[in-house]
């Protein structure tokens, strides 16, 4: 441990500009002597991983690895994981929460399927570079607000600009299902208690009509209607609808309605009360992207660790589960994503399945599982090495990280200041 620290303390002079995106992989690399967490629920002890031109060419027992690689990295019993994938993040859309000028996450209006998060993504965000050293290498970047917020895209987190960060553009549409309940705004003197929202039915009807129109639009296309046009993909399955819903009734109603409206692929984002709808979720194979466990229970009678137990409940039910980032201080907290999975593991999700919450499962939901999400030959070499268990904060200490075989910098604005002031103060 101390040695690594010392080593890294010596490095800064050499790697000052390391936040510059890495060059394409120039030579084939074999990492051996590692424990490989494949991402799909399996693990290979004493493994080796080889990759060339950004593609995995070998994943298996260390002793069987071919010797043909130009460069070998001694794994030193480290753990290899597929690059972790942050779901429903706003990385790169806001730099500093309180500074409005840096906030590009929420556009004016209610029905904005045509609004695209990808083009506002700031590839040079200091927050983005701070999440990579903890293993988060890919992110679904999504807009916030409104009834239909817009489209999300998958980005890789070591890029010059949004365009070369794109892994999959506009892969999903984010819909906030109307809530059957509402609260008064206490700060305006209203009763803050939760009650039925009388507008609920009309809100759903409005949405139904919107989807009906968007569907009808596919047959005409004239005159061009930007929002309806942007919804095309949800009817042919090329885009997923991410339904933000927490209450049981929202989950049930949204799934039933969206299927009726002809939507092909659905995922629930949130799902605090998903355990009440397991049968329905299972029946339609709806993935659930659950919130950070670092939330308080909904009320004082709820199990103290209900938010931690949600993971196991859904995983045990056989659903495809991933973890989403929305909430307070969500961007900077993206670096804690691995520990959310660790927390779900602490409360019942078997370890390798907890790894899958950050790798295979989100890749599958995003439709990029042919390329990333697991360490399998033929997929992209997007992975990292950690000195120990990457889901536990004590041992999540990265030595290397690769995106498409490119070895990226693990430095950041934070490490830069650390080094500078360590010298000043000590």
């Amino acid at each position, binding site marked *: *441990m*101390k040695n690594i*620290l010392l080593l890294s303390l010596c490095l800064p002079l050499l790697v000052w500009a390391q936040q510059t995106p890495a060059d394409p992989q120039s030579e084939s690399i074999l990492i051996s002597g590692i424990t490989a967490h494949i991402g799909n629920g399996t693990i290979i002890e004493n493994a080796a991983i080889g990759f060339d031109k950004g593609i995995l060419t070998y994943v298996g027992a260390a002793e069987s690895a071919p010797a043909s690689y130009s460069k070998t990295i001694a794994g030193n019993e480290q753990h290899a994981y597929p690059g972790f994938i942050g779901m429903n993040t706003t990385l790169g859309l806001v*730099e*500093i*929460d*309180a*500074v409005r000028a840096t906030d590009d996450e929420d556009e004016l209006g209610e029905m904005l399927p045509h609004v695209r998060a990808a083009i506002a993504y700031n590839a040079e965000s*200091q*927050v983005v570079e701070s999440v990579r050293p903890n293993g988060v290498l890919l992110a679904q970047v999504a807009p916030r607000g409104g009834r239909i917020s817009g489209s999300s895209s998958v980005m890789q987190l070591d890029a010059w600009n949004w365009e070369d960060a794109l892994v999959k553009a506009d892969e999903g549409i984010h819909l906030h299902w109307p809530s*059957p*309940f509402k*609260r008064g705004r*206490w700060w305006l003197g209203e009763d*803050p*208690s*939760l*009650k*039925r929202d009388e507008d609920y039915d009309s809100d759903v009807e409005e949405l139904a009509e919107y989807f009906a129109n968007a569907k009808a639009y596919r047959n005409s296309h004239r005159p061009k209607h930007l929002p309806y046009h942007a919804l095309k993909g949800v009817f042919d399955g090329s885009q997923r609808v991410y339904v933000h819903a927490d*209450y*049981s*009734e929202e989950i049930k109603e949204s799934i039933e309605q969206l299927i009726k409206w002809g939507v092909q692929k659905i995922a629930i984002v949130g799902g605090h009360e998903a355990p009440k709808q397991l049968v329905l979720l299972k029946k339609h194979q709806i993935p659930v992207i659950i919130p950070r466990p*670092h*939330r*308080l*229970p*909904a*009320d*004082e*009678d709820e*199990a*103290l*660790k209900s938010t931690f137990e949600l993971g196991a409940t859904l995983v045990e039910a056989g659903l495809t589960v991933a973890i989403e980032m929305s909430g307070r*201080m969500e*961007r*900077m907290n993206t*670096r*804690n994503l691995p*520990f959310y999975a*660790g*927390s779900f*593991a*602490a409360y019942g999700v078997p370890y390798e399945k907890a790894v899958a919450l950050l790798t295979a499962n989100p890749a599958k939901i995003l439709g990029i599982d042919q390329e990333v999400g697991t360490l399998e030959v033929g997929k992209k070499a997007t992975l990292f090495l950690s000195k120990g268990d990457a*889901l*536990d*904060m*004590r*041992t*999540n*200490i990265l030595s290397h990280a690769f995106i498409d075989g490119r070895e990226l910098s693990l430095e950041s*604005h*934070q*490490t830069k*200041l*650390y080094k500078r*002031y*360590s010298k*000043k*103060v*000590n």
Partner: protein
Amino acid sequence: MRNLLFGFFLLLGMELMAQSYYPTNLGTKTENSHYQAFTGVILHPQPGKTVENATLLIQKGIVVAAGTQIKIPKNTVIRKLTGQHVYPSFIDLYSSFGIAKAQSKTGQGRSTQYKASQEGGYWNDHILGNYQAVTDYSYDKEAAETYREAGFGIVNTHREDGIHRGTGLLVALTDDRTENDRILDATSSAFFSFSKSKQSNQSYPSSVMGSMALLRQLYHDADWYAGGNSPTKDLDLEAVLDQKSLPKIFEATDKLNVLRGAKVSRDMGLDWILKGSGQEYEQLQELKKYGNALVLPLNFPKPYDVNDPELLDKITLSQMRDWNLAPTNPAKVAATNISFAFTMDGLDDSSSFLENLRRSVANGLSKAKAIAALTTVPAKLIRQSNRLGVLKPKAWANFIITSGPLFDLDTKILDHYVKGNRHKINDIKQQDIDGKYSLQLGSHSLQLKLENSSQEDEIELTVTEGDVEWESSLKYENGKINLSLSSPDGLSAILEANIEQSSRIAGTGIDLQGNPIQWEANQKTKDNKERFLVFEPVATTFPNNGFGFKTPPQQQRLLFKNATVWTNEVEGILTNADVLIGNGKVLDVGKNLSDASATVIDATGKHLTSGIIDEHSHIAASSINEGGHNSSAEVTIEDVVDPDDIDIYRNLAGGVTTIQILHGSANPIGGRSAIIKLKWGASVEKMLFPNADPFIKFALGENVKQSNWGSYNRFPQTRMGVEQVFVDYFQRAKEYGKAWTQYNQLTGRQKRSAKKPRYDIEMETLWEILEGKRFISCHSYVQSEINMLMKVAERFGVRVNTFTHILEGYKVADIMATHGAAGSTFSDWWAYKYEVKDAIAYNGAIMHRAGVNVAFNSDDAEMSRRLNQEAAKAVKYGGISEEDAWKFVTLNPAKMLHLDDRIGSIKIGKHADLALWSGHPMSVYSKAEKTLIDGVIYYDAERANAQLDVIAEEKKILIAQMAQAANNGMTTQAPINSEKREFHCETLD
């Protein structure tokens, strides 16, 4: 007879309207000095006393005699009321009768108002001491009738506006008189609350603790003013002094504020009468200790509608319990012998007052105490015992005549006399015959439904045969019923009857075929509206919510065997070690310990540590910021600790045992903090850490400059201004201290001629800092301001004890180490505002290596339950050793709070505040299994888990009760879940 009598009284009333010394324009100036006697009554002259066949004799609105064997003068109008009951009419001490609501001040615009608008009075607009409600009073005939119908003849009314609301007046609710008759006392009592006046936007106080401080300061100022020390006039302070001997009534809006009112009352020696919350049943021990008289509402919650399971699911057990237990509140308060009165305030439907009164009696309140709470107790509290609340000679002739014993369900108030003036309430002959009846008319089996029969001319009848409705009409007058029915095929019947009893109506008539008949209708079900069930009350717990204890947990003698023990002492981390605790202390630490009397806990494979200490918490408080001024040193979080907060239990589940609840960061000089042990279920007094050094919150940067919200007119708006705030206040405190020191050195004789300095709670607090008796924990972010505060403090000979947040501490760690300030920081928060742009996760490590005492804190109700994992981030970011990292959340914060001689490590003699972890305490996979404070197990993971079933089971019982209540005709309410607010530094109250 009745009409005649009524006419006579009307006349009598008219005559009495004229005051004896008023000129009259009538032909003759006469005065009625006749007596009135009510004979044959069952008289209840005072609580617990009943006189059968009694006579009540009154004259000119005053009782002349009450009892038996009363000599009736010749000029007496006698009213014979055989079998009817007479009670003194009720007194409501808490009312806003006849006083227009205060008008809200509008048009504040963008700027906040800091200065008072009023002149001539106190510096704060919310102190309306000089206001007299009588100046705005006008008799409200309709409201008076509502009161009288519920039995109230006297109200003590005031304007519900302000923290000091000025005085109220005592009014007799009698129509057809003048105010000269009605106003019994124009300044009967003074009223108080913690809520600000609507008439002013002056921002101070913005919190409950600010209101409490303001009230205390007001009374200090009044004392000082009384000594002739003020160079200027203050009409409010003069009013406060004038009110010294008046009864004082404080309105609390919730159960915690009841105790807070009691506290202010005790601190200032005020003997306030507290208008309660209805949840006193949870606070009986404490209320008994304070001993204040109470005014209790009878606005029991309605049962929740159980037909919306999704919404019902969001109702907490404590909400459901309150529905079940509220009707037992009066009985439980009565059992403590606390003196209490009832008020009608808070009831949205005044007709439910008697119903709820009866419900209280059905739930165990003695009838005598119930009557006393409406008559003698309020009379005594308002200092009118001889004239109100009793029926004895010289008392006002205020009484109700009822059809039966007051607490019988069917009993109605018939007449209400106020100052001898009669008000009819219910017609005695007009029996309530509401209900469903069956009537056999030839071959037709009819259902009759009668409603509103007790209201004259408003009776409604529905007649059905199966699903078919018949046309019908009904007249019900003078106890006689006339009914006509038309069958669907056009035949008619006419029926009549004299009502003798409501269960069976029988009489004569003509049937559908035109033949005379005898008929009877039998009551099948009585209308439900007056009925209620008495439900088995559920047990209260400590605290009274789902995870509360049935009985408070006790201190134990325990021996933890074979644990990995993180001592935080030179012994370091011991493996396979034992720890013995008893009497709340650590008794022994070592290997192979044994103790015959201790319960052994096998800790094999587990880790035992001292409990986590959170230097910066905002849980367990009802308010966090007093942002109304740029300094609020006069407020204290100790005033607003919320001992029932579920976050206490959730924190215990994270191994936390001691927290400092800090004031927020709304202003440079914040309020005093509360250091508490998380003794779930204990009272606030027992939670407060005994003999802890006192602390105060300071703050710097964007929050105190109000950079991130729309306020542009409070000084300071820049970091330059922030410095001057501290310099100014420290300088003033220094001069304040000097003035008092000089004054205190004077001889008694010199003092008499000297001007006494004004006692100022805020300055007292700041003076304590200068004297080294109170310590600073300062919210801080960027290096410039951190350095600045150290320099200002040094100028005044003060050391900044702790910088909290301190996210750029790493940039000035060397300066901090020299100054001797500790750093209590976040493990990895940043990027949420501009001043944390350079916040780095390595901050703790750098400060630690520079020799600064470092802690990780939460400032967050969620994070505080996993501070063990935050400590692990010191290992990850910066490579701090595990042993040292663990001290970031235990020993180091104990040092910051000057409590390391008692807590923060496992050492013989220290408090047995421990956490037993399932594994390595800093692992993401470990859980606290047991958390102990002073040797008491306050959290046990197994118990917490089992409690979920207990909660579900009790909810099931209560839901069944509520369903039964609804089926029985009780009005229900939609389930509403009250959101619990979460506090952070930036929460504005």
